[in-house]
């Protein structure tokens, strides 16, 4: 199977080409959607084969590089179109193709009747191809193609309803913010390439080669610069502070896009990238600290905003930002395995939540459409009591909500608890660890609160939709609910492959699986930090504490939105300023406009009207005129007379020979 790994990104590419070029002519939605889904499903099958073969190998042999074709060879520089298979990329391809297949299937139902149905599937396939390139690339350049490709697809899909101005703006915002991050990625790449080349004559961008040479890297110094640049790239792609504001706006895209790109896969690229280069990141204690602090801050910051949003998708968007913060917290405290584990479980339950919200929106939209009402189909204030109408959606949604809230027995508990425990126990950041752990705990409480607030507002209580159209509310079709059920199932059981050792029922398969990838990083980490000994009692205690925290969050949500409906209003009127600030996302967009956007516009205008029009245009036009004059002059030499040409040649020859002979 390893030899055929190139099929994995190839299938979606074929799907993209077919639907992109011929989709308009095919017209038949079943064929278009079928092709799109089949292609990614084929990739999934190949990925399964790769995984099986990988499992069959002894742990230390689980690295394989497949060169598909030589790409750029120039002097010292060498970049092949090559794929790297190891436990980490295997996890990623399984998530991307597995969740991707389900979301493709779901989209057939969700996008039914949309104009540009083929365009949607073409983009979705193109996205999958890029994402697979990103996670499979065996050198930084291939990874970067994927990195840019997913950004492009994200732009195209956020702006899918491009006739809406808000969608176009959101797409632009996402693209620009990603570009800021990409710039960092490139600088990091160049720094690393240049440092290895000029100091050790190792000119490489290949991950395996960099890993082999990573012992040459110093602690801190240039590594800090390079990794901070890479991390800037990660904050852009994974929506972390300060580059997170694009993700909530990205909800302008169709819901399956939010589920696939802006929850389950693309936004985790930053986490994956740090995991892929863990052996470089860990060499800089400063960067690790920055990663952990940014992650923790994003986790709590986004969680607070999530508590006050009324748009169902926006709550989930802030939740995603917050959960990504948890993953970065894990990476920053050296718990790479736990971070990737949370990436995977998050992909399951967050995709399920988004698709569930899509199912709700679908039903709401359908009902409102019937009554010719223009109420907002995404506003939770218009919902309520939906569990009666949509039992499957409700159940899967509830299960995933329990998972994200961190209730024992569900997948999110295992991964989140692992992160919090390692934040507490891993000694990389001295006294800061306890602070990071504390922030993480509070963020976890907020998570439980806003998620159950969402569930209570949407599915419980009385139905607030216009009574006229109540009868038109009904469960979504099977093509939508089947993916929900599969993902809901995974959201429950997906965590058991990574159960903490402490619980002793199952070994922590997941961590063992990733051990060969992160072994080296852990080794390097020991250079400046020693893992202390913690008693089991402490671990049990903390675990219990995080359960208590989750229950507190749920209880508050229950009290406010189920038991006593007046409480939220009372809260709002008691702390109006606080509520306004949270509701308006702490005014971050306005702050960015003030700090960056407006000054940039002003400076741009200044350059345009002052410098560009007068100086640049003047020089350019002047040079142009000179050359046009020269051109006319040389043209004059071209008389058309053969004897003139012969004379020219003779003169040329004579001058050349004379210069050489008589010098």
């Amino acid at each position, binding site marked *: 199977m390893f030899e055929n790994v190139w099929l994995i990104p190839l299938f979606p590419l074929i799907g993209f080409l077919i639907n992109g070029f011929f989709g308009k002519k095919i017209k038949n939605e079943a064929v278009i959607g079928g092709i799109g889904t089949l292609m990614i499903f084929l990739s999934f099958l190949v990925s399964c084969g790769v995984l099986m073969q990988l499992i069959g190998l002894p742990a230390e042999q689980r690295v394989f590089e497949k060169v598909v074709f030589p790409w*750029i060879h120039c002097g010292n520089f060498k970049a092949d179109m090559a794929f790297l298979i190891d436990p980490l990329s295997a996890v990623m391809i399984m998530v991307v193709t597995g969740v991707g297949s389900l979301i493709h299937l779901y989209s057939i139902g969700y996008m039914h009747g949309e104009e540009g149905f083929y365009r949607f599937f073409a983009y979705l396939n193109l996205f999958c191809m890029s994402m697979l390139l990103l996670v499979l690339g065996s050198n930084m350049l291939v990874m970067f193609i994927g990195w840019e490709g997913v950004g492009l697809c994200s732009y195209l899909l956020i702006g899918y309803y491009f006739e809406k101005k808000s969608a176009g703006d959101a797409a632009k915002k996402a693209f620009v913010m990603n570009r800021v991050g990409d710039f960092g990625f490139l600088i990091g790449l160049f720094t690393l390439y240049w440092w290895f080349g000029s100091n050790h004559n190792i000119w490489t961008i290949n991950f395996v080669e960099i890993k082999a040479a990573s012992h040459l890297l110093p602690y801190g110094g240039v590594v800090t610069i390079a990794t901070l640049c890479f991390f800037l790239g990660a904050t852009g792609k994974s929506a972390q502070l300060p580059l997170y504001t694009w993700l909530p706006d990205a909800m302008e895209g169709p819901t399956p896009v939010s589920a696939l790109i802006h929850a389950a896969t693309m936004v985790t690229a930053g986490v994956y990238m740090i995991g892929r280069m863990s052996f470089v990141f860990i060499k800089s204690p400063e960067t690790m600290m920055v990663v952990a602090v940014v992650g923790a801050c994003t986790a709590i910051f986004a969680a607070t905003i999530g508590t006050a949003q009324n748009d169902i998708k926006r709550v989930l968007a802030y939740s995603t930002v917050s959960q990504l913060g948890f993953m970065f917290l894990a990476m920053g405290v050296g718990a790479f395995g736990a971070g990737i584990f949370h990436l995977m479980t998050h992909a399951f339950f967050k995709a399920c939540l988004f698709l569930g919200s899509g199912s709700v929106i679908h039903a709401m939209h359908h009902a409102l459409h019937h009554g010719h009402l223009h109420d907002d189909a995404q506003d939770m204030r218009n919902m309520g009591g939906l569990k009666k109408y949509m039992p499957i959606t409700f159940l899967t949604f509830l299960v995933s909500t329990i998972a994200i809230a961190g209730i024992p027995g569900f997948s999110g508990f295992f991964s989140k608890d692992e992160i919090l425990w390692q934040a507490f126990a891993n000694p990389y950041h001295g006294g800061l660890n306890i602070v990071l752990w504390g922030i993480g705990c509070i963020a976890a409480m907020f998570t439980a609160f806003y998620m159950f607030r969402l569930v209570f507002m949407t599915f419980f209580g009385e139905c607030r939709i216009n009574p006229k159209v109540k009868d038109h509310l009904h469960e979504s079709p099977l093509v939508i609910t089947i993916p929900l059920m599969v993902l809901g199932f995974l959201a429950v059981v997906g965590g058991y492959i990574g159960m903490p050792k402490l619980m002793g029922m199952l070994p922590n398969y997941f961590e063992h699986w990733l051990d060969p990838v992160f072994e080296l990083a852990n080794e390097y980490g020991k250079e400046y930090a020693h893992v202390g000994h913690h008693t089991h009692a402490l671990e049990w205690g903390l675990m219990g504490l995080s359960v208590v925290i989750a229950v507190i969050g749920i209880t508050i949500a229950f009290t406010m939105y189920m038991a006593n409906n007046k409480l939220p209003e009372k809260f709002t009127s008691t702390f109006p300023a606080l509520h306004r600030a949270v509701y308006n996302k702490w005014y971050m967009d306005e702050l960015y406009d003030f700090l960056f956007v407006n000054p940039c516009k002003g400076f741009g205008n200044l350059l345009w009207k002052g410098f560009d029009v007068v100086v640049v245009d003047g020089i350019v036009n002047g040079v142009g005129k000179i050359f046009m004059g020269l051109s006319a002059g040389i043209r004059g030499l071209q008389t058309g007379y053969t004897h003139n040409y012969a004379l*020219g040649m003779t003169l040329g020859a004579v001058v050349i020979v004379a210069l050489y002979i008589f010098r």
Partner: protein
Amino acid sequence: MDMLQFPANIAAAAGVNFAAIMPEVILSVIAMALLLVNVFINSEQKAYLGYLSLIGIVVTFFSVVSGWGAPQSGFNNSVLQDNFSLFFKGTFLVSAFLTILITDQYLKREECNWGEIYPLILFATVGMMLMASGTDLMTIFLGLEVLSVSLYVLAGFNRANLKSNEAGLKYFLLGAFSTGFLLYGMALIYGSTGTTRVAAIASYISQNGMVLSNPMLVAGMLLMAVGFSFKIAAAPFHMWTPDVYEGAPTPMTAFMSVGPKAAGFAAFLRVFIVALPAMKADWSELLWVLAVLTMTVGNITALKQTNIKRMLAYSSIAHAGYVLVGFTAGNAVGTAGVLFYMLSYAFMNIGAFAIIVLVGRKGEENNNVSDYAGFGFKHPVLGMCMSIFLFSLAGIPPAAGFIGKFYLFSGAIQAGYVWLAIIGVLNSAASVYYYLRVMVFMYMKDPTEEFDWLAVSPSLALCLLLSVAGVLIPGIVPGTLLDLAQKAILM
């Protein structure tokens, strides 16, 4: 660096060895057979000659491919079919193939549907192939003459058209003149070293170092450089190019701007790198100046051109200048860049000329840049093809032209010719003006008159398809082709 040296394991070093000239033999036989067939068919059926010659080219191409990696020498070391010559032979065959694909439609339009054109193209190709595999100055000269004589006829092929006549005659006169320089240079080299075998010249010079200060040898080198410069249309020996390219039948212009230029470079490279490595300091200095002059004159003069054939003539002068940059560098990257560039240039330039054939009307009308107004909207697919070719000529990724220039210029930088690379890049930037001007007309101006319905013959469509593929594939995945080019120069 042991580029282009005689490989140690050559089969049958001496005596007659037909394996060493198998592609030439096959193609000559087919060309002669075509001449015979031509007598027996009427003018409606001349297109069959084209199909037959296409088959002949494909067969020859297989013979070229099968020779890869197994160098053959023969005829007392006067011919060497190594990877270097095979790569160039491939390039010639590609350009002949593409040219023939666009010839038929042109001949019918201009009502000069005479069958001789196909054998002539094949004979010219045989000449080019001999130039590429010649390892004796005389073989190279023989190839050059076979090529030139065919080309003189091809340039004046449209004998009812005055401009074509003028082109043929001018090319003949100036070509004969330049041949004089080349032959004189060869004679002087022979006089000072006593041999015409390129490898023997090198070993004579390395054993008798004082011959380097002999003016006769230096003058021989310089005059050969002048002769080759004429063939590749390097300034200041380029003045024939615009007149000939403008007047010659459009498909022949396409052919001349690609194949013979590549052949000139093949012989130029072989003679200077294999025979005269001891004088590299001298000749690279000269090539430096020629490269700068050629690029600059070509690009600057192209800016003002209104006739698109003439514009592409100056553009082809400029491209010879870029290739000279890689030659001047003389290192592995630069030389491989030359090979890579000549092949990709064949695709992009013939592709562009295919569009010119399409847009042109009887009597070589409709060849002005302004005639392309609105073309891109009227014929979106053809417009897109033309844009791809123009982007590639301008050196904009992801076209092959970009990658080719990248290797040429990075070769120069690695060899320490930083200024040469800078001048090259500036020139390339200036060239964007006149390439994009065509696109401005194609997409941003309204047509002044209605376009005729363009009949795209299947063979011309095939040519466009192959050209687009030949521009885009090496542009996006250059690794494989570059690998071949590198294998071609390193034994």
